[in-house]
């Protein structure tokens, strides 16, 4: 089977999902509103926290929260694409798609195109709001490249994880099974204060949570003080690689059921 058939399937699925996304406010709002709420509520409401002894992030609290919200928006862009896949299975569209597609792995690639588009749209809007709210990114172009590449890898990992769940369960009721693990990974990291200021069980959880490295590296890029770059990329790529296998397993499961 030609590479062309893979690309044509990916582009067709991607185009359809991007179109559905931008023509349906019910799909735009959840993935966008929650990171915006978190940014607004915590960058505004908690800004005083940067006066806590031991808070040593040089770019300020708005940038500190932006680092997290960027990651959240990227991950949600991927997870909510998993919701779209589940919806397509419920409506019977995916069954027809699998009969028609000459290269079924192109279906996952198409959903990934949609996930990247969603994440870029979300990140663009959130960055605009953050800049209006006083965000100062001191990192240079190379830092920004590192920051947004990391975010895109997280987006891909989340989308592939979501698609694996959606293709196995093939129902919208699988939503919590996609959302809750992503939520836990994100929030059991140093979200509101640096790692050293965490207390209790969240400190222990953040120590073993791979997202902690990704978040700290992202914040380092924003502040022009890159830290733990290699481990962060290794972890993000590892998560994405594992998710590829998970998504392929999901596709096989869906093929058996089709």
């Amino acid at each position, binding site marked *: 089977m030609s590479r062309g058939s893979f690309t044509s399937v990916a582009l067709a699925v991607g185009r359809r999902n991007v179109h559905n996304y931008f023509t349906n406010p019910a799909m735009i709002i959840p993935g966008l509103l929650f990171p915006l709420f978190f940014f607004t509520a915590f960058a505004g*409401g908690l800004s005083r926290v940067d006066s806590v002894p*031991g808070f040593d992030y040089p770019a300020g609290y708005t940038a500190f929260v932006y680092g997290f919200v960027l990651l959240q928006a990227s991950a949600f862009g991927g997870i909510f694409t998993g919701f779209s896949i589940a919806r397509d299975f419920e409506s019977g569209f995916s069954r027809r798609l699998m009969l028609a597609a000459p290269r079924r792995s192109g279906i996952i690639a198409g959903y990934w195109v949609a996930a990247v588009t969603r994440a870029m749209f979300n990140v663009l809007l959130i960055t605009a709001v953050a800049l209006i709210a006083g965000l100062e990114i001191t990192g240079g172009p190379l830092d920004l490249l590192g920051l947004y590449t990391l975010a895109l890898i997280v987006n891909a990992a989340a989308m592939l994880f979501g698609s694996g769940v959606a293709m196995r369960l093939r129902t919208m009721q699988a939503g919590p099974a996609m959302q809750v693990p992503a939520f836990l990974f994100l929030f059991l990291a140093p979200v509101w204060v640096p790692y050293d200021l965490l207390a209790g069980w969240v400190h222990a959880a953040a120590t073993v949570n791979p997202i902690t490295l990704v978040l700290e590296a992202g914040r380092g890029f924003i502040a022009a003080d890159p830290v733990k770059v290699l481990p962060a990329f290794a972890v993000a790529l590892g998560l994405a690689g594992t998710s590829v296998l998970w998504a392929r397993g999901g596709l096989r499961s869906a093929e058996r059921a089709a």
Partner: protein
Amino acid sequence: MSRSTLALQVGMLARRSVVRTMRQPAMIVPALFFPLLLLAINSSGLDSATNLPGFPTDSYFQFALAIAFVQGALFSANSAGTNVSADVETGFLNRLSLTPLRRVALLLGQLAGILALGLIQAVTFLAVGVVFGAGIQAGVPGALVIVALSLLISLGFGCIGAFVALRTGSGEAVQGIFPLLFAALFLSSMALPRNLIETDWFQTVATWNPVSYMLEGIRSLVITGWDGEALALGFACAGGLAVLTLAATSSALRTRMART
């Protein structure tokens, strides 16, 4: 229609509403799980905020406990709205409109489910608070007042959900208001006391936001004991919301029943 007939109608519909709520774990579990999860994460993640000069307690868990009550009440809006919209979508309200049932009975009956869920939430959050060492400075009477205030807040938010469901007849519309209600919680004194909020516009919004006073009413009983001003403001905001939304829901119900 006699008073006993009205009581019978209310009783039957209230029983249906409570049983229906209790039979849906998907409605109860998130309403308990997510507020407790946020409480657990924030109380550890933000414990260092208690080092800020002027922070009212040395335990962020004690400070954050109030959030669980209000966040739980937001789920009441979702729960009530979903149940009422299902009644509209399945034609249950249409059939009721053919009976001599009084509107007030229908309204009170539907609200019983909200209050039952609110009671389960309030008792659970209080128990978790006490077990994990938050302590209630106002003692047992204070705990009872927390339950009462929490129920009033649940009633207010629950009526918002019921109002939207009656106006639109759509479960999706009910789901759509959830993020807006969440915004009201997030733009309040949820994370820090108002006097410690540094960002001017945020402090202004939090000061105008009635949710801040609901939180502060509960928080005062947990942290400081009996604070008449905080309690009066908390009950006034929660009661005001409940009265307004009850009136709106009653009006929407009248319109809905007339349509059918």
